């Protein structure tokens, strides 16, 4: 049998069911990988004791024939999900040492299905970033490097630690959250699969809030099938999140196991052909369409006329919501406190010292666009543009079933690049943000390596609450691409 850490989630659950390995052995093998690759800085908190305790409980359930869907599967959790009794930081100094007294709904769903937590992964502070460079706990290193070039590359962001941990075979799957591309872009940079579900599919309860109308938890894994299995367990209506959809959870795994896309109409949005996209990615995009066509799909050219406005509109909506959500960090009830001569100074000192540069910048943008006299010019305008973007997608889906686009305009870049000008960094998310603004599900699938040996991914976007069609198309793309890439040394 292959090394336990090389197995996919589907293979692991099968090996555990057949008693070819125990959950404790599986946990130990993955914990050894965490030790081996600690220099990647993928984790903020490792939880080996908890992992072994959960694995022992899994072995007991396996022995009794009471295994859950993810029994004994080691997972890494983005440090934005509150985990009872385990420090949850959102990669911010302001939450360092915060120990939640409750468990997020999504992680509770995972544990109820038998999954085993190995630790909490690093991210951009409060999930604001596309490089993982804004973490208070330092950047994450991408396991991939350019051929013949030893420079460290970013894993993407904001869920960079979760993506790097899966790409480095420290875990077979992990959780992320996606507000404007924070699952899909790191998945593309790290050569793995990452899925942002439809807004409302997974509960946001217990997830540290960034922009509440956009935030959505989702899974990372190395295969489409594993991603589907994680999604199935993570999803479901939660009365504690009023935006969580009261819909039944389909068998996503069955959809992912059925790559039959004959007759499926795949839309190619012409507005996604933009300057600044690498030539290789443009070529990859056509190649991806050829693959789907060969599998029986029919390409359809579609138009999403407001695409270019999604990014600037997002940079009003997301900071506005962030400035409201982050008002709770005041040094009074939890987190950092920096004293001051009165209460106002305590707030200002705490927030000034506790938030990093990018978080402060977004709070200021948000406060400005919501301030008296500017609300209509900025926030209302952005919400109107959001309505137009959603309408574009709705019209496009009248003539196609899924959309195929690049995930990111480039492959992973070097740590420290694109840091001089915030807008340059924001442009990384130009292909992922439109679907976020419309609340639609999207998945990034690794397709090939570029000339430097770095992974490149393509994004599929689906109709609202139609992750099944999305997963079928993703499975077909995965099968045709036969990516199989693995970072050297991992």
């Amino acid at each position: 049998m292959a090394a336990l850490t090389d197995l996919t989630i589907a293979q692991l659950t099968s090996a555990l069911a057949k008693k070819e390995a125990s959950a404790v052995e599986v946990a130990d093998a993955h914990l050894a990988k965490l030790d081996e690759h600690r220099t990647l800085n993928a984790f903020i908190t490792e939880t080996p004791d908890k992992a072994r305790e959960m694995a022992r409980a899994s072995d007991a359930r396996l022995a009794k024939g009471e295994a859950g869907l993810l029994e004994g599967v080691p997972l890494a959790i983005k440090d934005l999900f509150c985990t009872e009794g385990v420090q949850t930081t959102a990669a911010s100094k302001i939450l360092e040492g915060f120990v939640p007294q409750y468990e997020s709904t999504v992680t509770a769903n995972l544990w109820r299905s038998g999954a085993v937590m190995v630790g909490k992964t690093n991210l951009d502070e409060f999930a604001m970033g596309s490089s993982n460079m804004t973490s208070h706990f330092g950047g994450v290193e991408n396991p991939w490097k350019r051929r013949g070039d030893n420079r460290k590359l970013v894993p993407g962001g904001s869920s960079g630690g979760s993506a790097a941990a899966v790409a480095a075979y420290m875990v077979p799957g992990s959780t992320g959250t996606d507000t404007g591309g924070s699952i899909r872009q790191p998945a593309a940079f790290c050569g793995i699969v990452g899925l942002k579900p439809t807004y409302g599919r997974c509960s946001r309860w217990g997830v540290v809030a960034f922009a509440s109308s956009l935030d959505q938890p989702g899974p990372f894994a190395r295969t489409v099938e594993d991603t589907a299995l994680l999604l199935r367990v993570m999803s479901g209506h939660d009365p504690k999140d009023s935006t969580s959809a009261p819909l039944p959870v389909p068998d996503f795994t069955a959809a992912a196991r059925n790559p039959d896309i004959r007759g499926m109409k795949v839309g190619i949005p012409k507005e996604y052909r933009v300057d600044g996209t690498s030539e290789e990615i443009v070529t990859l995009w056509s190649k991806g369409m050829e693959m789907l066509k060969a599998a029986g799909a029919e390409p359809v050219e579609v138009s999403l006329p407001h695409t270019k406005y999604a990014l600037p509109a997002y940079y009003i909506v997301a900071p506005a919501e962030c400035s409201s959500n982050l008002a709770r960090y005041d040094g009074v009830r939890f987190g950092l406190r920096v004293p001051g001569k009165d209460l106002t100074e305590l707030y200002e000192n705490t927030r000034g010292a506790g938030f990093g540069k990018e978080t402060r910048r977004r709070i200021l943008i948000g406060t400005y666009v919501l301030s008296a006299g500017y609300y209509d010019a900025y926030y209302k305008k952005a919400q109107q543009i959001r309505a137009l973007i959603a309408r574009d997608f709705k019209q496009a889906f009248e003539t196609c079933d899924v959309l195929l686009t690049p995930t990111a305009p480039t492959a992973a870049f070097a740590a420290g690049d694109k840091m001089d000008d915030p807008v340059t960094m924001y442009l990384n998310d130009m292909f992922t943000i439109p679907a976020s603004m419309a609340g639609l599900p999207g998945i990034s699938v690794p397709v090939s390596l570029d000339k430097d040996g770095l992974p490149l991914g393509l994004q599929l976007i689906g109709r609202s609450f139609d992750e099944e069609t999305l997963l079928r198309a993703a499975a077909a793309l995965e099968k045709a691409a036969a990516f199989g890439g693995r970072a050297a040394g991992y």
Partner: protein
Amino acid sequence: MSLDKETVARIARLARLKVPEEELAPLAGELSGIFAWIEQLNEVDTNNVEPMSSVSDVTLPMRADKVTDGGIAARVLANAPGGAVYIDPADKNAGGFFSVPKVVE
């Protein structure tokens, strides 16, 4: 749209965010750059477009207005900066307080 130092200082004050004097000018430059880029939204005619505040079609659900938990004061206060003050240290769930600097003279 260009923001000056004074505007940045004003919004920092509104956001209760201490920004050191020397960072105001560079921040004003960065924020002006971002807002100049955002200006392109004015190219779009949004007359008669209903603003979209949520992508969800679901009407917010109603629930009975009744208490569903309680008696967890110790957990509520567990992360209090500098520690909480309990009414009865022997029974932390009996209630307690977060502490703040004196606000009433």
